């Protein structure tokens, strides 16, 4: 398989599964994306959104129902997985339990008929890259979760694949190890200089690793953009919900003035940024991140001031999660370093640029 490819192109990739009722359900519905060489792309979404299906389609482990996949001008979706030559890291690692670490990593080279001396040299290099040089002769069962994970990565990259596919590789690790492995994966990606497609349901992981994020829901890509863009400007209500906009206020559009929109309801009148069609009178949702809400010092003026009472405090170290119930009865989650007391009144404010107003999805 060639390594100096320019781009991988998914063209309306669709995968349907026969459902119990005999009805075919599209787990992946017309996904199109072009990934240039060197890019790190994260497929992000809740479980059941089709992200793993997409990965398995690219790897060749699932046949497409429709659409095609091309590596430059070669159509690859018709090839069996063993002919595609992509490296894949599985969620449960899928290490061969009867083979030593060395034989696991060397498996792909052996299948490609690489000469023994050359293979040994490359396995040694891969072992060094994932910092497992001292464990070459152990069986996978003798390694910790993090070590197994690194063997899985080494096994996938030692063949120098044009594309590395990773299916939630960190979901089985503890929080500390997950952070360590995250930077490890980023480092390895840069060293290889090829493309990585990374499936995850963890937005922090996607934000920190990827050059570009594909946010998926119900088998379709809802937004394809750089991490900062997905974080600050979610394309729709579902993406916003998934990207940590935990506060949701059901309001009505009062007037619109270019990008700015004024919404009211629940005893509040707020000004924010309009996302999409929002004619006056439209039912809308104002979306807010807990960390974008600011706690006002007593008497100080804040934009979009809201008065409420502290209902609960979840201690979180430097910052706490404060639940504020407004006079109108709406509950706001606020992340702030400010001190607060349960039962005490609190005034919070929201910068206009951080209050995103979406049209309420048709039910």
């Amino acid at each position, binding site marked *: 398989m060639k390594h100096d490819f320019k781009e991988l192109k998914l063209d309306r990739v669709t995968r349907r599964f026969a459902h119990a009722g005999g009805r075919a359900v599209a787990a992946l519905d017309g996904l199109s994306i072009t990934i240039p060489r060197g890019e790190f792309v994260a497929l992000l979404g809740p479980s059941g959104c089709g992200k793993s299906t997409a990965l398995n389609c690219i*790897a*060749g*482990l699932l046949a497409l129902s429709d659409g095609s996949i091309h590596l430059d001008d070669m159509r690859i979706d018709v090839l*069996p*997985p*063993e002919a*595609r*030559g*992509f*490296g*894949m890291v*599985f969620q*449960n*690692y*899928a*290490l*061969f*339990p*009867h083979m030593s670490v060395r034989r696991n990593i060397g*498996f*792909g080279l052996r*299948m*490609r008929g690489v000469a023994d001396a050359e293979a040994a040299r490359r396995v040694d290099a891969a072992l060094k890259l994932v910092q497992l040089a001292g464990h070459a002769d152990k*069986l*996978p*069962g003798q390694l910790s*979760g993090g070590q*197994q994970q690194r063997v*899985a990565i080494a*096994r*996938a990259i030692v*063949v120098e694949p044009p594309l590395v*596919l990773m299916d939630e590789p960190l979901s*089985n690790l503890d929080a500390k190890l997950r952070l360590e492995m995250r930077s490890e994966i980023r480092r390895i990606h840069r060293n290889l200089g090829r493309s990585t497609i990374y499936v995850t349901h963890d937005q922090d992981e996607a934000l920190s690793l990827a050059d570009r994020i594909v946010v998926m829901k119900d088998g379709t890509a809802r937004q394809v953009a750089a991490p900062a863009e997905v974080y600050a400007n979610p394309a729709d209500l579902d993406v916003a919900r998934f990207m940590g906009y935990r506060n949701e206020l059901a309001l009505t559009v009062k007037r619109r003035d270019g990008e700015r929109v004024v919404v009211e309801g629940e005893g509040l009148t707020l000004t924010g940024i309009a996302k999409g069609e929002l004619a006056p009178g439209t039912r809308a949702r104002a979306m807010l991140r807990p960390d974008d809400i600011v706690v006002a010092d007593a008497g100080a003026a804040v934009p979009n001031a809201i008065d409420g009472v502290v209902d609960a405090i979840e201690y979180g170290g430097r910052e706490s999660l404060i639940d504020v119930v407004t006079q109108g009865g709406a509950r706001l989650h606020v992340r702030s370093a400010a001190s607060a007391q349960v039962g005490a009144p609190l005034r919070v404010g929201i910068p206009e640029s951080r209050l995103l107003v979406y049209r309420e999805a048709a039910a």
Partner: protein
Amino acid sequence: MTSSPGLAGADRTPWLAAPSAIFLLVLFIYPCLYGLWLSFHPTEGGMLANYTKFFSSERQWPTIFTTLKLALPATLINIGVALPIAYRMRVKTPGQKWVTAALVIPITLGTVLVAEGMLTYFGPKGWLAQALGALHLYDGAIRLTHNYTGVLISLVISGFPFAFLLLLSYVTGIDPVLGRAAATLGAGPWQQFRNIYMPLLIPGIAMCFCLAFVQAYSVFPSAVLLGAPAGPTRVISIAAYEAAFEQYDYPMASAIAMMMGLAQLVVVVAVLALRRLVYRGPVTGGKG
């Protein structure tokens, strides 16, 4: 670990094994030891008289090998045929449960019933002979019963479902993601089988071989009904039966039964010893 108050430190869980221990003692260990004791107390002669008689009689000791000549090929055929089918059925396909049902039905039939059926089907005037004759495919005499072949066929019919079910459970126990991982690394279907499934299956195959072999080695009804019990299929259990119920020499029958057990044990121990040489760990590829 929980234990009732006042009994801290006293682990009573071993008592859970008591019912099965009693069961084994009454139904297996006692009869076995009694048989062993009996075999050393012959009706005439010294302690080893029965064993001397067994090994000096042309009608006795060759039965060890007569039985082996039936049991070994039957076991190998059963495993050799069951393995590819079980491997093929590791992935869910439509109609799979019907195939499994069809393959397993013979297990519900007793050996005597199978033997009766075979006598009418495979006999010189049976359906098979008549069908082949009518189609002019083969007009010679069909001799598939009352000889070695008849017993071998019946051992395959009754032993196959057993081997198949056992192997199917071993095959489906292997994490299918391992095969997929091998595929993404460049392994084609045959290499996946050879490099991933086969090494992980060997311990299971060895276990299946032992159980199937022991079952085949104790063949009795089909050897009498379908074989030539006077000669080529005079298996060791027939020798024991004759000693016990024709000559009423229980000690001699016990000695023959002991030899039968020993022969089975030798094969089983040999296979299990070989099994120790290969990987026997978990068959999944990491954390679930």
